[in-house]
């Protein structure tokens, strides 16, 4: 997040987002656990929690939309300033 290049800034936000998503998935993980769908009678004693997985799938989709808008704005910035350096953009703006 300390970089001046806006593409690196976007990459860093994506990495932060992905790391949180991995943390969320792992919060529902159980060693040697099984999935509910693999049991015919819904009777699994050591079940992996599916809710974090569902939420993370949704978070990935939201992240996709957000990243698309971020990259669109980055393209707009490059077209206006012909640089990816955010400090130079502020200089030109001011």
């Amino acid at each position, binding site marked *: 997040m300390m970089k001046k290049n806006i593409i690196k800034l976007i990459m860093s*936000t994506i990495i932060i987002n992905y790391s949180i998503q991995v943390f969320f998935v792992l919060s529902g993980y159980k060693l040697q656990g099984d999935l509910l769908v693999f049991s015919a009678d819904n009777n699994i004693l050591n079940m992996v929690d599916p809710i974090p997985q569902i939420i993370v799938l949704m978070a990935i989709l939201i992240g996709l939309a957000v990243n698309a*808008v971020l990259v669109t*704005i980055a393209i707009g910035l490059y077209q206006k300033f012909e640089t990816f350096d955010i400090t130079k953009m502020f200089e030109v703006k001011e």
Partner: protein
Amino acid sequence: MMIIPLFFIIPLLSIFFIAAFTREKSWLANLAAVLVAAVLLILSLMLALFTGGGKVLCYNMGGFSFPVSIMLVADSLAVFMLLIVYCISLLTLIYSKGYMQSYLDKWKYYILFLSMLVGVNGVLLSGDIVTLYIFLEVSGVSSYALVCFTKKANAFVGAFRYMIKGVLASSIILFGIALCYSYLSALNLADIAQQLIIRHETAQIQMREDIVILFILGFFSVGFGLKTGIFPFHRGVIEAYTAAEAPVAAMLSGVVIPVIGLYAFIRLFFCVIGVFPAGMTLLLAMGILSFSAGIIKALREHDFRKIIAGHLVSELGLVVFAFGLGTQNGLLGAITQMVNYIIISTLFCYTSGMVSYAINSNHTGRAYAQIKNIMVARVAVFTAALALCGVFPFSGFWSKFIIMIEAKKVGNGQWFFLLALFYLLAFISSIRILKKFIFTGKKGDAFYKPLKIKIPFSMNFPVGILACISIGAYIIWFFYAKEMFFIPAINVLNEGTLYAQNIFLGIK
């Protein structure tokens, strides 16, 4: 309750309608958006009647039962906020008709506007934390796109900075949700509140001794603080206010930021986690720091929009401070100040838009001296500046008076002294605004020539309505609306974690 889903169905259907049929007819897109806002305002009033007397309405989506279902909840606080949101949205859409005349692809603007409203509705009505997060992102993404809608260089820069902070805030909130789920195995707000009470009673511990919850609260404070633009996270929001077009800035300051930042945090803190002294002190400190930082920023700036952006941060800081007081009157002051903040911010944004429209440029600087040449803008700035410093009978007087009195009772004089100091600075800044933009002018300057462009009625009308509310109607409105809307909203916050029991009653 079948009204609640209409808050999502109507705007989403109208988005499809606008995209399909109004690409060449911008007046139809505007009409459709105005109609949607009007219908949703009427539905909000109906919800206010249904939720009178502290009733809670619940709607389970997908046919599942509590706590698995996606639940939509309308209580007095959510309905109160919905009413404010739709009053401001309706006025802004009417304002947009005149303001957006010269822009191409107006249908895209209305689509983004309505999707932003869908997100705001979702945040207000969601009964579980994941739905809240989803709608937070929906309204966030729409607002980022709206900030750079004009595709100007400064709009792109403002949108980028605002968006980076917004994305970071969302990640932090998601981390808080992940921690919360790991700790309590619950996502429904009422379920979380219930689980917390059971856990603390079983372990015989107080809230301040529960380290994990303090961590979760810390993540939520930082995440929602970034969204709200509270000190020290206020720079991105100021950039966005300054870069966005006037109707977008009005919606950002008047609707999006109070709802997706402040409302969401207050809902989680008061109704789900439950208040405790250290948390309230944190709110008081964050509030007073924002109040001071905003005023100092406003006093240092010379550009109209930057001065206003500083004041918006400071006024929102005062709302946070008043919430931190935590008493019945403190909460009344907070809610009243929030309404006052929304009126002032919207009025200032509309005024700046009038000047941009008159000079056909969003370029700031000396051009804002044109305010004195536009009659309605002059009245609006005069009203808003006096409301800003809390002069009687303008709207700011009541909220600031209540907060001042309550701060004296709560804080042994220390908060009272600080508030008095910053009220004085706000007064100086307001006088500066009046002097700089209304009462002085150099006759030989090109920017002081009388305007040839006539401001359309659709832009004058919302400004006039808000100025009237701020001047006179506010007194009558305050006394009549207090029992009907304000007190039930405050009761929701006062009841705190009894929210869970109210939801269980609502489900039955």
